[in-house]
């Protein structure tokens, strides 16, 4: 089965000679649909670089990046842009909703930019808002939405249409832990509906919402968690006091 995202021996080098910085070293990573992967690591470990390369926002220095089985290096620049717009959704720390557009228009915009007819785009956008439980706020502007509603609209925009890969860089930002958990619940729900998700976070209690946690250090993937057994095992063992 084709992975939603596959990084094969990906390296990224910035600069050259004495000022060369190697941000990623031979990174291998596969993410399947319905899987949420969290990436953790100290500052400068390459987490954000990994995410921008996975999202085709910048190119790897070497190695292959495959999205839905398509090697990004083998397609033209315009096809790569198209793939990026159609297959990949991004969630940013501050949500980046356009203040002059309503919630519905914010979610519709990426589809319209991609040439989807207005009516079809609005239908898909409304579906995405419904999935995130904010369809009743469709006609509100971002400054008329609560923080939680803005998060939901931002995630709706990231999964609207046929997007199969959801990338989130510290999406909980400066939110308190309970609202941060709300974002992770939404990302987890989105992946359980068939999307593959990669989320960069430095907070362990948020990373623990992921199916798998990948650890980066100095640009290397050094470790990852194994699929945790069910919660029953916890209550039967360590949790019982």
């Amino acid at each position, binding site marked *: 089965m084709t992975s939603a995202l596959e990084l094969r021996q990906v390296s990224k080098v910035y600069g050259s000679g004495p000022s060369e910085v190697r941000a990623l070293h031979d990174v291998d990573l596969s993410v399947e649909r319905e899987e949420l992967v969290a990436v*953790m690591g*100290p500052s400068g470990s390459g987490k954000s670089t990994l995410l921008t390369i996975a999202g085709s926002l910048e190119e790897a220095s070497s190695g292959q990046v495959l999205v839905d089985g398509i090697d990004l290096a083998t397609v033209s620049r315009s096809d790569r842009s198209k793939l990026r717009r159609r297959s990949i959704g991004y969630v940013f720390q501050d949500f980046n909703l356009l203040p002059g557009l309503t919630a519905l228009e914010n979610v519709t915009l990426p589809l319209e930019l991609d040439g989807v007819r207005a009516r079809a785009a609005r239908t898909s956008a409304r579906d995405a808002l419904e999935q995130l439980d904010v369809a009743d706020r469709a006609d509100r502007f971002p400054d008329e939405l609560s923080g939680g509603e803005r998060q939901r609209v931002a995630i709706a925009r990231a999964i609207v249409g046929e997007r199969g890969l959801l990338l989130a860089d510290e999406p909980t930002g400066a939110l308190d*832990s309970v609202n941060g958990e*709300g974002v992770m*619940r939404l990302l*987890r729900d989105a992946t359980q509906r068939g999307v593959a998700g990669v989320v960069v976070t430095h*907070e*362990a*209690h948020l*990373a*623990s*919402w*992921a199916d798998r*946690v990948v*650890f980066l*250090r100095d640009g290397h993937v*050094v*470790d*990852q*968690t*194994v699929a*945790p*057994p*069910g*919660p029953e*095992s*916890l*209550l039967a063992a*360590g*949790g*019982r*006091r």
Partner: protein
Amino acid sequence: MSVPHALLALLRQGPKYGLRLQSEFESRTGDVWPLNVGQVYTTLQRLERDGLVEATGEGERSRKRYRITSAGERELSQWLGNPPDLVPPPRDELVIKVLVALQVPGIDVHELLQVHRRHVIETMQRYTQVKAAAGEEDVPLALVVDAELFRLEAIVRWLDAADVRLKRLPSPTPTEVVDAPLEPTRPMEVSP
């Protein structure tokens, strides 16, 4: 967890039988702290002896209903307002392991830290599954699980800080390792 005070809190809502107290205790602590019925009755007997609860009904213990006394109410409110003992355990095994590893040649301390980090985060994933399965509306369970998650997260943060601090140390050359005099690890100071 103070079982006597938890039972007093449940009785503050009205008189209850022992079995009822057991099931309410478990459901309100998210089933994370199971309590057997024998423990409930033993605790109730002690509370009765101390005048904090009184039994209504005669005969077998399962036929008795218990209610909180005014002394029990005073004890409960005193206990709720008293800050718990926050003194750390005298020896934290993980801290000791890392300190010992620093003295053992050939041990990659960063790898060791990562082994512990992964183990802690895997445990956190399991607790999070408990919370995810229960849904957001189960607030008592979320409170219990959050307490455990934040305790574990503190360990991860300590491991992260240790990683960064150790990375800043100059790497010892082989000669330095061989010639270095053995020094005992300073005993940890524990606040009283």
